[in-house]
């Protein structure tokens, strides 16, 4: 095999793995937006908190790595639940701008909290078993096992998400609530519970993404959520914010573009973070609602 093909295979796997992470985070943005029309700016920081929880669960509480990850994911779910309850719920009927500012405030709070409590110096995230870094040969391409795990876990989580949304009662209510909150309450559904569940789900996904991210770029630091969070948000907007398929497609699209452009035009590597914005501008010029359009509230 020639070098070009190897590089392509390598790049495809890298794209899928980065795209998976963007998609996992983007789903959290889009679910919250779909229901509350709120851009949860703290989502990237929830992602960051998830990695710290995993880090400390393993280093301080000496949990085995799998248990540490699981506990971190659950605690991050609880964090998402609490943030909605404390910061967003009291403002649910307030003007949109109030909740938006609260979300930005929550983001700053979590970052400062992490700096104060966890410390501002990046920590090495070497808490996962070494076999994650084993190299698997596909032809001549050397792909780390972690890449396959990332793609596999993401696929599995999206399958679970699909199952929740389309096969369970709470999923039915989530889809209903995204078009019409008052009418959903008229069905006997407790709207607060459904919204809480959405935050829990989105936050657990962010925690998984955070842990996978921290193994890929093995360190944790208080501002690590900013760039991935922003890019995942862009991915959600590109896909059509509010649409779950949109967030997934947008995440992978962004992952592919970022890796492929740098892969084929290495001289552009310095502009890597700019691509996301360029794509955003181009897509919004032609499709202001993003790739997938969501049902907006019914007009009488």
């Amino acid at each position, binding site marked *: 095999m020639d070098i070009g093909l190897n590089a392509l295979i390598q790049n495809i796997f890298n794209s899928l793995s980065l795209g998976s992470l963007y998609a996992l985070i983007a789903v959290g943005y889009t679910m919250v937006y779909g229901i509350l029309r709120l851009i949860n700016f703290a989502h990237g920081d929830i992602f960051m908190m998830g990695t710290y929880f995993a880090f400390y669960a393993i280093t301080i509480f000496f949990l085995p790595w799998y248990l540490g990850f699981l506990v971190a994911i659950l605690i991050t779910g609880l964090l998402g639940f609490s943030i909605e309850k404390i910061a967003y719920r009291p403002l649910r009927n307030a003007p949109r701008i109030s909740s938006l500012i609260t979300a930005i405030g929550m983001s700053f709070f979590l970052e400062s909290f992490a700096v104060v409590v966890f410390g501002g110096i990046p920590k090495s995230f070497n808490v996962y078993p070494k076999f994650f870094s084993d190299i698997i040969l596909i032809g001549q391409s050397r792909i780390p096992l972690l890449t396959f795990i990332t793609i596999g876990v993401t696929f599995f989580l999206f399958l679970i998400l699909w199952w929740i949304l389309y096969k369970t*009662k709470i999923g039915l*209510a989530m889809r*209903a609530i995204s078009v*019409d909150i008052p*009418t959903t309450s008229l*069905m*006997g559904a407790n709207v607060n519970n459904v919204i809480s569940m959405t935050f829990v789900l989105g936050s657990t996904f962010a925690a998984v993404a955070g842990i996978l991210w921290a193994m890929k770029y093995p360190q944790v630091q208080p501002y690590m959520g900013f760039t991935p969070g922003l890019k995942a948000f862009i991915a959600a907007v590109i896909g059509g914010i509010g649409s779950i398929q949109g967030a997934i497609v947008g995440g992978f699209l962004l992952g592919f573009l970022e890796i492929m452009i740098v892969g084929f035009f290495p001289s552009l590597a310095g502009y890597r973070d700019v691509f996301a914005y360029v794509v955003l501008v181009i897509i919004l010029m032609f499709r202001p609602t993003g790739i997938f359009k969501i049902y907006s509230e019914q007009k*009488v």
Partner: protein
Amino acid sequence: MPEILKIEDLKVHYGVINAIKGINIRVNAGEIVTLIGANGAGKSSTLNAIMNLVTSKKGKILYEGHDITKSSTADIVKSGIVLVPEGRRIFPNLTVQENLMIGSYGRNDKDGIKRDFDFVLSLFPRIKERLKQPGGTLSGGEQQMLAIGRALMGSPKILLMDEPSLGLAPLLVKMVFEVIKKIKDEGKTILLVEQNATMALANADYAYVLETGKIALEGSGKSLLAHEEVRKSYLGVK
């Protein structure tokens, strides 16, 4: 007949606007009771107040003797009061079947849900043919049927209906009222808000006329149908 729902001195305001200025309404079990009146008279506000969907209200709402004034909407629905909202408000992104199933969200009795599902399909054969379609693809009349069916899936003892005939062709209006009578025959109580006063009064056991947030008149449907002022103001008869 025992009364199932009683509203005492209900007041509702939106900001500085007083939508309802102290009304008393009694609904007997098994009857069709209607509220008629012009736009802005406070008919929909009354129904929304019963469901606790308005933010600011005073007065008391008693259901089967219990005070439900401060109960949550979800609990009110579970206790057997279900609203068919104005403008149908079906979920356009859910299939017709999902729209029906979400109506039974607060219930856990699988057999009862199945029974009500079959009843709804027998009531609306047109809906039965469209179970897999998104609700948003139905025609206006079909959406109204779906909205009524969805409410029946909540196994209501009392069904509140907000302008079910709004925007429907005359033939469909007739059909809606036939359905209402069938629902009554099932032993359910109906509180109906209507602008189509003729049809509403003709079918109601008891009726209230609302004018700018107050009750102007009340009486049996037939007596109001014959009432001169009602005929002039609401029925368009000279």
